[in-house]
């Protein structure tokens, strides 16, 4: 069958996995029954267990769902240490349900797949050798990709039932009170891990920094934690986030960033009390810098900045240009370390951030968001999942969720090398064109024809030509040529959920 973004979906797989086709970006107001975790009551004086091997033995059984968070990013030691023990102990048929998978986790996941230890995966994304293996059919069951908000929704609804959560933290006391902001390996907000702590049947905290009881501020609380394990090191502080923030010097990125800023400042949303989300990456950081100057020049202040936070956003907070930072994760040390200094920098969990099945998520209040794209097509559908060769190499992250903003801007170059960014049809639809408003490239902007208000507001910005998205696509094709269509087999290797849990697209096995 086909869904409303015209993607052919595999009927058998859909009925086996109980999927509905994606229909609309409007979630509506359904009544939802949430699940609750099983609690093993205890009044013990301490939850400290002597070793990881011991706690794995006590908690994990074949066929279970285990989870991790990715806040340590490329500096993560916890994932590899736990998975090594699990593989060596010979467990089988596990479902891996981390908030996302970073490159340092790739090799051991591939090994776990090859040995039958892991037979199902749900994640925000994957890349490198793991994405390559999955795209070549290494995993028998399709991977399920969910946005950060959708993961929160699926955990709350019981679609993801976590048996054991292994959560690395930079500090914890003997009862399991912990936060992400203190210690050698501090990463700031524990946003994604808070879901696991709240909903997993068994919660294992892993730390290299055992603090005196009671450890505060406690983001994860002792009421949620079953075991605490002390190991030598939970992560490599230098690889958790980039150190000093570097601004891009790439003239193309700067041109795009400047244009993004012009789009924001010429829109009706640029007024006192507006809110925004920028994300990481060179262009996004440059946008923050341009936006700062425009806010000063026009004496405009923002009510909040949302999402993944970087140092330039913290600078705005400290300068008084932003009133609150609503922080689900921190991309650099500056943002991470400011967390306990700035009480206006509020840690939020993934549900509060972006979950549609909620009594209100922050993304619903968001005015402006700047997002990236590997590909965007003439229907404004965006792909952030599969590369130009069809291989999985990305993550949904908060893309679908933040695209709910009132002004959703995609910033992307027209072409990258010989690969067009603006294409007739994206390889994989991740975020539907319905929620995308403006595309900004180095040659100009394209506005979603559904947004007449934006066409009126943005059509006469000096030095910013407006094209139709079809014109942009033709410009790109003229530069790079017409590529040969990618070849895939009939086998589905990944399901792409929309944030409401419906199926928006699938990824097929690549033919090599």
């Amino acid at each position, binding site marked *: 069958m086909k869904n409303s973004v015209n993607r052919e979906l595999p009927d058998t797989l859909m009925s086996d996995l109980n999927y509905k086709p994606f229909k609309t970006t409007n979630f509506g107001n359904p009544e939802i029954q949430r699940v609750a975790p099983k609690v093993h009551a205890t009044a013990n004086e301490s939850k400290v267990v002597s070793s990881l091997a011991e706690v794995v033995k006590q908690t994990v059984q074949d066929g279970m769902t285990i989870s991790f968070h990715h806040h340590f990013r490329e500096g993560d030691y916890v994932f590899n240490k736990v998975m090594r023990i699990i593989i060596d102990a010979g467990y089988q048929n596990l479902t891996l349900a981390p908030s996302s998978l970073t490159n340092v986790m790739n090799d051991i996941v591939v090994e776990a797949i090859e040995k039958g230890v892991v037979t199902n995966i749900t994640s925000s994304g994957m890349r490198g050798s793991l994405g390559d293996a999955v795209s070549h059919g290494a995993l028998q069951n399709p991977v399920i990709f969910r946005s950060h908000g959708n993961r929160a929704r699926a955990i709350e609804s019981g679609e993801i039932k976590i048996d054991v959560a292994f959560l690395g933290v930079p500090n914890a006391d003997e009862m399991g009170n912990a936060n992400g902001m203190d210690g050698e390996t501090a990463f700031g907000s524990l946003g994604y891990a808070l879901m696991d702590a709240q909903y997993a049947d068994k919660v294992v905290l892993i730390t290299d920094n055992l603090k005196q009881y009671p450890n505060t501020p406690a983001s994860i609380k002792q009421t949620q934690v079953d075991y605490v394990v002390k190991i030598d090191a939970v992560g490599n502080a230098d690889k958790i986030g980039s150190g000093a923030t570097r601004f891009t010097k790439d003239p193309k990125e700067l041109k795009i960033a400047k244009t993004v800023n012009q789009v924001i400042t010429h829109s009706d949303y640029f007024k006192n009390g507006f809110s925004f989300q920028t994300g990481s990456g060179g262009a996004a950081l440059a946008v923050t810098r341009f936006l700062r100057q425009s806010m000063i020049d026009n004496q405009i202040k923002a009510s909040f900045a949302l999402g993944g936070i970087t140092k330039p956003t913290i600078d705005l907070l400290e300068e008084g240009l932003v009133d609150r930072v609503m922080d689900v994760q921190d991309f650099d040390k500056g943002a991470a370390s400011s967390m306990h200094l700035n009480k206006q920098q509020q840690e939020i969990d993934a549900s509060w951030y972006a979950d549609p099945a909620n009594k209100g998520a922050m993304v619903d209040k968001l005015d402006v968001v700047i997002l990236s794209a590997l590909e965007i097509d003439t229907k404004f559908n965006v792909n952030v999942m599969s590369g130009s*060769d*069809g291989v999985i190499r990305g993550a949904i992250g908060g893309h679908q969720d933040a695209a709910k903003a009132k002004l959703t801007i995609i910033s992307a170059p027209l072409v990258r090398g*010989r*690969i067009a960014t603006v294409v007739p049809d994206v390889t994989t639809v991740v975020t539907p064109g319905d929620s995308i408003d403006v595309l900004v490239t180095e040659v100009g902007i394209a506005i979603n024809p559904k947004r007449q208000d934006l066409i009126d507001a943005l059509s006469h910005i000096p030095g910013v030509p407006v094209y139709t998205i079809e014109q942009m696509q033709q410009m790109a094709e003229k530069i*790079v*040529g017409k590529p*040969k269509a990618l070849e895939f087999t009939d086998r589905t290797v990944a399901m792409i959920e929309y944030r409401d849990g419906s199926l928006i697209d699938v990824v097929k096995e690549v033919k090599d």
Partner: protein
Amino acid sequence: MEINKTAIAGTLESSDVQIMISKGTSGIQFEVESDVEKQFGDQIRQTVTDVLRQYDVKNADVKIVDKGALDMVIKARTIAAVQRALDIVDQPKWEVL
């Protein structure tokens, strides 16, 4: 025209292509390395073949290391490589350019 010496043109920088042409015996033989092989491999071979044909080269071994070069870059690097291989760098073939 007969290729008698090996010649190279281009670099391994992003958006460039390095083309090495050497003596061949059985038509034009390709060895292609490219990140965009799947989408543009055939077009890359075609562009190089067209240039070689204009120089009337029938036998050559061609090694291509492509870093996402646009078509015009591939054409220019091929012209440079084939002129060097034929030892005619001082006699540009204007009708090809």
